[in-house]
């Protein structure tokens, strides 16, 4: 079955441009949490040589010189635009695997091979027209190949008009094309594996495709062997369709400035636990345990380092904010040690189960359970109506000294009544 990988071009930058057309044609970079480093770059910025992950302080001078516009990440906006794009894409196939915020696989069963490119063009036009977001489409027989086809479409190596179907290329064309692409561009081949492959003389996609998969398995793992098979058009990685429930929920952030006091750390952990519990309820799940972690800044080599985590089992699966926050606080007290400058903390909810299939145990008190659910419904409702954080557990605090630095954030154009775009 042919598989399409649809990937949004410079997604975060594209989202910003939809609502701020002034950014069109200008070098734009979106910075990570705390305005730390580049997480999205416009083509103009890429041409200036700014690398992904480059710290802002390193490019600040160059930014001034070239008029680079830097924006804080606006995940509320990107999340909404992503949901719109994915919903549109779902209309083009019964089999959709949303792979990340800006890319998804579509199974294209039943399409005539000669029609695939046209279908890809239709997909591009629909998303562009309805949301303003440009996308590229890669089509091939396996997920690994469709990722690669997408890369080729985006870079203009093959295909045309942002769509590349490997099925349209002859074996000789494929061979030549793959020979010109570095092995590191392959999905699942990281820097470590790439370096080791290079030592073995495997430097291009073509070389890996031609490699003996048996030998590769011995040298690496079944994972890399699978990649070799996929490059040869043998599907080994299945489409994971929507509905696969999340296994974990992670909420963590770096702090705007280092935090030393347990009180500040407690507020942040309580806040993350609250957010995680909200996500949990939205998914209709319950968590059976959670993990709290705190750490110092590993890049500050001159500072004393500390990095601890602890798993706290819940007495029974729960989605109750009060329960989850108190468990997280108990965990934090276990791992906290005074005298360090903490840079990051987080809460990870684990052992997620569907709330309707959680087994009742002897400790369960149905009335308490119903009360907890009712309480949480009211809390979620108020927060939805009055704004996030209107009602919360007292532990979250009100000052939030640890909050993220987001000095260059654009308005929430689609989620706040006061921040809608304006037309004269």
């Amino acid at each position, binding site marked *: 079955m042919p598989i399409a990988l649809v990937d949004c071009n410079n997604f975060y930058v594209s989202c910003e441009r939809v609502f701020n057309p002034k950014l069109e044609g200008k070098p734009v970079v979106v910075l990570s949490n705390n305005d730390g480093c580049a997480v999205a770059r416009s083509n103009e910025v890429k041409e200036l040589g700014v690398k992904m992950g480059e710290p802002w302080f390193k490019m600040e001078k160059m930014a001034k010189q070239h008029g680079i516009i830097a924006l804080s990440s606006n995940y509320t906006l990107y999340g909404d635009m992503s949901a719109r794009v994915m919903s549109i894409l779902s209309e083009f196939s019964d089999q959709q695997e949303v792979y990340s915020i800006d890319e998804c696989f579509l199974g294209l069963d039943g399409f005539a091979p000669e029609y695939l490119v046209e279908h890809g063009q239709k997909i591009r036009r629909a998303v562009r027209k309805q949301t303003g977001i440009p996308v590229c489409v890669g089509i091939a027989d396996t997920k690994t190949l469709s990722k690669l086809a997408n890369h080729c479409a985006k870079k203009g190596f093959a295909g045309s008009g942002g769509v590349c179907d490997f099925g349209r290329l002859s074996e000789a064309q494929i061979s030549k094309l793959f020979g010109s692409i570095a092995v590191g561009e392959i999905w699942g081949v990281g820097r470590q594996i790439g370096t080791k492959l290079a030592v073995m003389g495997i430097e291009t996609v073509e070389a890996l495709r031609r490699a003996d998969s048996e030998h590769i398995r011995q040298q690496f793992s079944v994972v890399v062997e699978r990649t070799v098979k996929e490059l040869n058009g043998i599907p080994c990685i299945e489409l994971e369709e929507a509905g696969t429930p999340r296994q974990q929920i992670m909420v963590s952030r770096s702090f705007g400035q280092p935090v030393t006091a347990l009180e500040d750390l407690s507020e942040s952990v309580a806040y993350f636990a609250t957010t995680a519990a909200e996500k949990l309820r939205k998914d209709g799940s319950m968590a059976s345990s959670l993990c709290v972690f705190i750490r110092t800044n590993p890049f500050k080599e001159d500072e004393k380092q500390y990095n*601890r985590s602890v798993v706290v089992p819940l007495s029974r699966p729960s989605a109750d904010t009060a329960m989850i926050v108190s468990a997280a606080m108990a965990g934090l007290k276990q791992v906290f040690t005074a005298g360090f400058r903490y840079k990051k903390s987080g809460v990870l909810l684990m052992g997620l189960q569907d709330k309707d299939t959680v087994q009742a145990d002897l400790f369960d008190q149905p009335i308490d359970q119903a009360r907890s659910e009712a309480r949480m419904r009211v809390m979620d409702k108020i927060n939805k109506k009055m704004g996030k954080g209107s009602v919360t557990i007292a532990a979250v605090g009100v000052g939030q000294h640890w909050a993220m630095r987001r000095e260059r954030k654009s308005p929430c154009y689609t989620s706040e009544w006061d921040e809608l775009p304006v037309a004269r």
Partner: protein
Amino acid sequence: MNNPIQLLQTLRPALGVEPIHLPLFSDRVAAGFPSPADDYLERRLSLDEHLAPNKNSTFLVRARGNSMVGAGIFDGDLMVVDKGLNAQPGDIVVAVVDGEFTVKYLGLLNGLFCLKPANPRFQTTEFKEGQELEIWGVVTSTIKQFRR
């Protein structure tokens, strides 16, 4: 998180396990006759569906200024804009002019598109041949609220 995760079983009792109650019959049994209206239940009307049938391509934009008062669009009005629709002459559109959003009638003048205000105090913006007019979306309704 490089460190091995410690399991803290000792925390379990600390997390508020309360006295044990054994639930025997926790579900209510439904008895009596079903409501005679049940067969006639239909979904309540939805403003979302009415105003924004294309939810993926619909955005809200705030109107500013007086250039469209003749069309009933006043300063501060909320406009429902569908990006997915193809604009036709006569539509009210949100267009991009010099990097800014503007709301005007899409007009045709001597075979070329133009943006026409609905207020004699404002001027029509004409586009020469080869000059690009970027339509951002089509205004499908405006929402005026008199009190909340």
